[in-house]
C-alpha cells in the first residue's frame, strides 16, 4: 500500500437566495432546504467535503454573497468549496477569508483562462478547483457556460477534453467534470467521458451528474478511477443515505473514510 487516501463523497448544494435548490438538467429548481441545516446534516453523516454552488451568481453578473459562507464555516468541521461568480483574485480572497477551503470557477475561467493561473499564484493549486459543464454535441463532448439560467446558457466552443488538458496545464488543483447529459437523470455517471478525462489529467478528478443509486458510485470509482463523486438530489431526498453508501463502497473494496 502506497497511500490510504480515501475516495471522497461530496454532496453538492446548489444555493439560490440563501436556500438550497435542485432542478433537473439545470431547469425547474425546487427548494430542498436550509443551507446550514443540510450542511450540518451531511457533515454529521460522514460526507467528506461539501460544495456550495451559487447558481445565480454568474448569470446575474455578481459575485457570491459571502455571508452564508461564514455561517457554514462556523458550523461544519469538514472542508468545503464555494463555486459561482468568482471572477477575480479579490472575489476568491473574500470567500477564502470567510473560511472556505477551496474556490471553484467555471464560466469566468472559460471567459478568461488566465484567471486560473492568477488564483494558483495567489493561493496555491490546492485551493483552486475548475468546474466543467460538458454536453455531447455532434459526436463530441463540448463545454457549456452560464448554466445557472437556461435561457442564457451558451456553448463555449471548447472541446471538453482539450479544456481538461488546458486547465491542468494552468495549475488547477482539482477538476469537477459535470456531465450535463446525465445531470438530474439519476441514470448513472457518464463513465466513458470520465474515463477519457481521467486518462488526460493527473490532478484529482471529481465525477458529477447522474447519480441515482449506491451502485452508480461503486461503478464510477471502479471504472473511471475518479477521486471523488459529487451528487445532490439522491442525498437531499435521502434516496442514497451517506452512511449506508460508505459501508457499501467499503464492502466493495473501495477505500473510503468510515
Amino acid at each position, binding site marked *: 500500500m502506497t*497511500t490510504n487516501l480515501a475516495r471522497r463523497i461530496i454532496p453538492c448544494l446548489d444555493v439560490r437566495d440563501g436556500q438550497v435548490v435542485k432542478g433537473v438538467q439545470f431547469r425547474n429548481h425546487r427548494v430542498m432546504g436550509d443551507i446550514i441545516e443540510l450542511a450540518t446534516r451531511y457533515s454529521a453523516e460522514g460526507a467528506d467535503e461539501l460544495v456550495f454552488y451559487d447558481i445565480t451568481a454568474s448569470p446575474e453578473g455578481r459575485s457570491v454573497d459571502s455571508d452564508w459562507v461564514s455561517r457554514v464555516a462556523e458550523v461544519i468541521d469538514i472542508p468545503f468549496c464555494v463555486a459561482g461568480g468568482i471572477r477575480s483574485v479579490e472575489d476568491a480572497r473574500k470567500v477564502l477569508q470567510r473560511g472556505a477551503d477551496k474556490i471553484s470557477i467555471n464560466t469566468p475561467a472559460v471567459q478568461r483562462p488566465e484567471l486560473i493561473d492568477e488564483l494558483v499564484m495567489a493561493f*496555491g493549486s490546492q485551493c483552486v478547483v475548475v468546474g466543467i459543464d460538458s454536453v455531447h454535441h455532434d459526436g463530441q463532448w463540448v463545454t457549456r457556460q452560464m448554466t445557472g439560467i437556461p435561457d442564457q446558457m451558451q456553448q463555449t466552443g471548447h472541446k471538453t477534453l482539450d479544456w481538461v488538458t488546458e486547465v491542468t496545464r494552468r495549475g488547477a488543483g482539482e477538476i469537477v467534470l459535470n456531465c450535463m447529459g446525465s445531470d438530474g437523470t439519476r441514470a448513472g455517471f457518464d463513465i466513458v467521458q470520465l474515463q477519457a478525462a481521467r486518462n488526460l489529467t493527473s490532478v484529482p478528478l471529481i465525477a458529477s451528474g447522474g447519480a441515482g443509486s449506491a451502485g452508480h458510485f461503486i461503478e464510477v470509482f471502479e471504472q473511471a478511477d475518479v477521486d471523488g463523486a459529487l451528487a445532490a438530489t439522491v442525498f437531499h431526498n435521502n434516496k442514497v443515505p451517506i452512511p449506508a453508501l460508505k459501508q457499501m463502497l467499503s464492502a466493495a473494496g473501495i477505500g473510503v473514510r468510515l
Partner: protein
Amino acid sequence: MTLAIIDSGGANISSVMHALRRLGTEPVFTADAAIIRNADRVILPGVGAAGTAMARLRELELVACIRELRQPVLGICLGMQLLFERSEEEPDSQSGQSGSGVGCLGIIPGTLRKLEPAADVRVPHMGWNTTTAACQDPLLNGLPEHPWFYFVHSFAAPIGDGTLASCTHGEPFAAIVHKENFYGAQFHPERSARHGAKLLANFLELSCN
C-alpha cells in the same frame, strides 16, 4: 484559559478560530509577543510557503519568542513544518534567503522534503488519510488506532524520535510530532471532523508543566 493563535500571515485562519470556539474557548489572533508569551496555549497555524512564513515571523521579531515558549504549542500544517530545522521548499524572492531551501525554527531536528509523485500517489497530498500511532501520548487520548485526518501539503517531515504518528503517501512521513512542550500536526485538525476535534480538545487539556 487563554489561547493565542499566531498571525503568521496565511489568509485562511477563520476555520481554526471556529473549531476552537466550538470547543468552548475564545482564541486571540495576534502577532504581539507579550500576548503570545503569556497565553496558556499557543497555536502556530500556517498556509502557503515556508519562506514567506519565516520571513514574516522574522519581520515581526517572533522567532526567538516562539523558540522560548514553555506552554503547550501546536503547529498546524505549515506551522508544524516550521518547527523543524529546514524545508527543501524553494525560498521565494521575499524570503531574504539564498541558496536551496528555507531555514525554519529549528525546534525539532529534521528537514522537510517534497513528496514524490507516483502513479497512485498524487502531489499535493490532498484529502482524507489515516495515521498510525508510534507511541502513546496524551494528545492521542481517545483516538482510534487509525484515525482519519484531512491533509493538504506537498512537503513532509521525516519520521524521527519526535514522531507520535505517521501517515503514508508514497513514503511514510511524520503526521503528528512532539518535542517537550511543542506539538505539530501535518493535517488540518480543524477540518478533520470528530477525530480532529478530539485532537484539538486533547491539546487544550494537556497539563501545563
